[in-house]
């Protein structure tokens, strides 16, 4: 099922089979060039595959944007230990909904991408870690895996070529943190989902302490077309240093929300106004989040002139992230937005480290209060200060993910906080450190 009409401005590489009748079935996949790239890889050396991916300038689509070819090259292929492929299908970043359409509409594309990765590093076993709420996707993936087994694309003797690869799905249990790669591996191993100390990184010591290629669903899905088109051609779809297309999730106050496959470097303005049909109700855009709630928030004015790629966003002080665009119009209550975001991170903090566990909780309490207008201007400073105190000091990036949007909202929309507290009359005791008293 598709959730939106495709746009003519899309460059449909990964999504090109979307909308075909029975697109998730292996016959549809095979009829439209499916598994051809994998077969091509059987004639390539491991180096050649990795070189091709490197040449494509593919950067990880899970959020961090790490060059995929480089990541694969870190796997010690000579190691006597078994190697694993792990697909991060935990998609939980608010605003992000691209992996699910990929798995729902074209599950074999993911399987083929995984197979190519397995060839590249010599892995015999793979796991797709799917967020628990995607129950129906697990069924779709399981069915596709079954089909692939029956057609000999998975199993002990793939295509009669003596290649062995087994693929399994594994369900998450409702923790955003399990999308973080090391926490995901812990969870996959049956342990509590909390992150590991890194280094070592998964490429060297991942699942069961063995070399592991761990990538996002979309990252794997990009690989078959890279092999098909050649890395160079694929790179040219994007911008220098970041090749290809990106599935962009347009969410929020926009006329045509949905998942669109756009070339990297696509202008924000064109994306909102032409692909997304403009801001809902013809309103002004107050705030813009480019890639999921973990990114610093931009004001509308800041966002309009940018392009959707890693460097452009970094220059503007934010991140391309997962491609989960969140658009907020002029009527948005930014204090509520800050609270909603903090509510999420507070709920999802795994509790392992102090600054995140206690910081998100404190901030949530504080923002709840400010949202009710109960507070002083010092409390607004405190929000920024506490978020700053979390930043860069937590065990995993979730702490930063909570701090960054908060810091930017307080910085850029401070007047909204001021206005809220001005509405409620609060009598302040003399001492600067005493709690306020509310006069109703």
């Amino acid at each position, binding site marked *: 099922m598709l959730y939106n009409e495709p746009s003519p401005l899309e460059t449909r590489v990964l999504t090109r089979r979307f909308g075909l009748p029975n697109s998730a079935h292996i016959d549809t996949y095979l009829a439209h060039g499916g598994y051809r790239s994998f077969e091509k890889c059987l004639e390539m050396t491991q180096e050649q595959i990795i070189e091709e991916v490197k040449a494509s300038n593919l950067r990880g689509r899970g959020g961090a944007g790490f060059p995929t070819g480089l990541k694969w090259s870190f796997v010690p292929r000579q190691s006597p230990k078994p190697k694993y492929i792990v697909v991060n299908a935990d998609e939980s970043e608010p605003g992000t909904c691209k992996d699910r359409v990929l798995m729902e509409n074209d599950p074999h594309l993911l399987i083929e991408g995984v197979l190519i990765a397995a060839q590249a590093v010599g892995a015999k076993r793979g796991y797709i870690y799917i967020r628990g709420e995607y129950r129906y996707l697990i069924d779709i993936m399981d069915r596709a895996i079954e089909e692939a087994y029956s057609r000999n694309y998975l199993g002990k003797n793939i295509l009669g070529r003596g290649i062995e690869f087994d693929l399994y799905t594994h369900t998450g249990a409702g923790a955003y943190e399990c999308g973080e790669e090391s926490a995901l591996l812990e969870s996959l191993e049956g342990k509590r989902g909390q992150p590991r*100390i890194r280094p070592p990184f998964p490429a060297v010591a991942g699942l069961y302490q063995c070399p592991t290629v761990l990538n996002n669903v979309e990252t794997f899905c990009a690989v078959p077309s890279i092999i098909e088109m050649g890395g160079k051609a694929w790179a040219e779809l994007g911008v220098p240093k970041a090749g290809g297309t990106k599935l962009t999730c347009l969410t929020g106050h926009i006329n045509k929300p949905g998942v669109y496959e756009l070339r990297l470097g696509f202008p924000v303005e064109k994306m909102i106004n032409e692909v997304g049909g403009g801001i809902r109700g013809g309103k002004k855009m107050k705030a813009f989040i480019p890639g999921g709630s973990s990114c610093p928030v931009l004001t509308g004015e800041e966002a309009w002139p940018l392009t959707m790629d890693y460097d452009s966003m970094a220059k503007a002080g934010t991140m391309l992230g997962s491609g989960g665009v969140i658009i907020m119009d002029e009527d948005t209550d930014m204090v509520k937005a800050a609270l909603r975001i903090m509510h999420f991170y507070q709920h999802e903090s795994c509790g392992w480290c102090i*600054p995140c566990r*206690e910081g*998100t*909780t404190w901030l949530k309490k504080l923002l709840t209060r400010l949202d009710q207008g109960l507070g002083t201007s010092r409390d607004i400073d405190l929000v920024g200060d506490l978020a700053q105190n979390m930043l*860069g000091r*937590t065990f995993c990036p979730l702490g930063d993910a909570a701090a960054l949007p908060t810091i930017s909202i307080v910085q850029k929309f401070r007047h909204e906080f001021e206005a809220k507290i001005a509405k409620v009359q609060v009598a302040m005791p003399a001492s600067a*450190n005493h709690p306020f008293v509310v006069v109703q």
Partner: protein
Amino acid sequence: MADLVTLTINGKTVQAPPGTLVIDAAKRAGIEIPAFCYYEGFSLQAACRMCLVEVEKMPKLQASCTLPVAEGMVVKTESDPVVKARKSTLEFLLTNHPLDCPVCDKGGECELQDMVFRYGAAESRFTEIKHHVDEKQWSPIVFYDAPRCILCYRCIRVCSEGMGVGALGIVNRGVYSEIAPSHGDHLECDECGACIDICPVGALTSGTYRYQTRPWEMKHVGTICTFCSNGCKTTLGVRNEKIVRGNNRDKSGINGEFLCIKGRFAFDFQDHPERLTSPLMRIDGKLQEVSWAKALEAVAKKFAEVKARNGKFGIVGSTKTTNEENFFLQKFARQGLGTNNIDHHRSGDVVTLMDALAGRTNALATVEDCYQMKAALVVGADLAQEHPLLAYQLRANFRHHNARVYTVTRGPVREDQYSVSRVRTEPGKELEGVESLRPMLSQEPELLILFGSSIKGEDVRRLVAFADSLNIPVKYICLVDYSNSRGAVDMGLLPDLGPGYQPVDNPGLTLPEMMAATDLDVLWVVGANPLARYSLAAANAFVVVQEMFLTETAQRADVVLPAASAYEKNGTVTNVTGQCQKLTAAAKTMGTKPDLEIMGLLAKEMKLNLGIWTVQSVFEQIRTQVRGYNIPLPVVATGQAAQTSPLNGRIPVISRPDLIQSASNTLFTSGSLGRYSKKLTSVLEYPGELYRP
């Protein structure tokens, strides 16, 4: 030293081997980096974020507990950004902390208090509501107060990695995370209290100590645990002559920070309500309280009378009394009463081992060797139950040095968790099992052999011969039961061997022989309970018992002399590995006397000349007269362990190996004494299936 890494910490040039963590390198250089979750010897967590430091060329502050040193690294541990980060982390930590320091057991020794004192802000910016969770009791020993918990995970690690029990874990997420026992609402574990001890705050508290005192109102006395033979040092916290706590705060003993339930909690026998505090004499068939003078006079008179008519004495010594007491007792028997009818409860064939190893050096292992040697073979013993410290050391050796451990036991043992090979045998057939390991053992560079009471007599010699044939260096530990079982043998509480394994001219009666002798005139029992096992054949024997409690033996006595406990006396004891350590009196029970004093007074009453009977002078006699005990005084005097080595010569006596039998205590039992610890019995009565290996 070419392969050292050089770095700069706070302007100091520091050298450390590659792989050293910055927090350790700093510590060696005298720079303390604060941390809650980092704990030397256990796995890394990097969770508390207190140890963040500034490293030149790195944009973010780095956790020094997981950062290995690198050449040319420049580290600052107290710079402004670092101090600011610590301050804010503490501020975060205090937001949900109850701050009930005035009533918290940990107040005064709390790492959170110390840290806030050092870095924390005086003002509080937190004006929200704290969330509260009720305190839980997990067992008679362990209580958990979640709001005080700072989630450093030390307790989890000490339990799983240190103890090999793994009874603790985390439940819930985020700020609602809590430590929880693996059995849901209660613990089924060793009840060792290590988790309580290692907790930096007052989140885990002990059933014995909670709300008893403020830490600064105790005096702390370092002495040796009086239960099993491992000889752990324990620091007793004493308030108003009452022992309220046992731990090892300074980690100075052979046990480092280890203690089992007995060493940590079972001290409560000391003020058990049934403790004897007055001499008792059988008057009109009933034991009645009398004065010390009267009791001593009666005993002395009887002894003198029986001695004068050449009557038959039977003397049973203790496996818990001090070396000085044991030495003096055998001297009293042999020189004072002219009898060799002296024995004790024997639990390991130390005598045959000493003979089999005669003339060798370096063949007796220490507790430290359990941690250091590359391979170990456990024969016929369940260390986790009977020798908790040795089990702990072996496990630490495996964790830190990958030691290879082999077991030849009757049933499963905890060492199976990590041993390279395990063989199950019937008792008595252990040597066949050992033989089956020959191919693997002969590949080892060295070997430590620990063997239990089922290996005795010729089997000990066969075991030594087997080990010799491996052609590798081997050290031995002959496992014995109690805190001074080893000292009892060394001091000559045997009918055929005097102190230092010197054969006597006309061997006396063994313990079973005394009990069976119908013509026994006097049975004198010092700190033992033979009537729990044997019946006394001589109906008319005059029975004198020095005891803390009215045991089976004391109930049969004609005179009972109330003895001080090991925690109330000075002296030395020798542990299972032959390491001699000092006891220091911590408390006092009115009305009791140390056994040495009782014997001295008896000697005086009988006008025997047995020399001065102060602890110091008897210890001096031991040092000069008992083989292997010529140990350096300062070592013992400063509370360290000095290893005795009685291997200089053959022992021409086969000292009745058939009488050797371990009491096979579990973690929660300890012969007669264990019955008088309410803590031990409460754990035994606690519902749930207690941990068994």
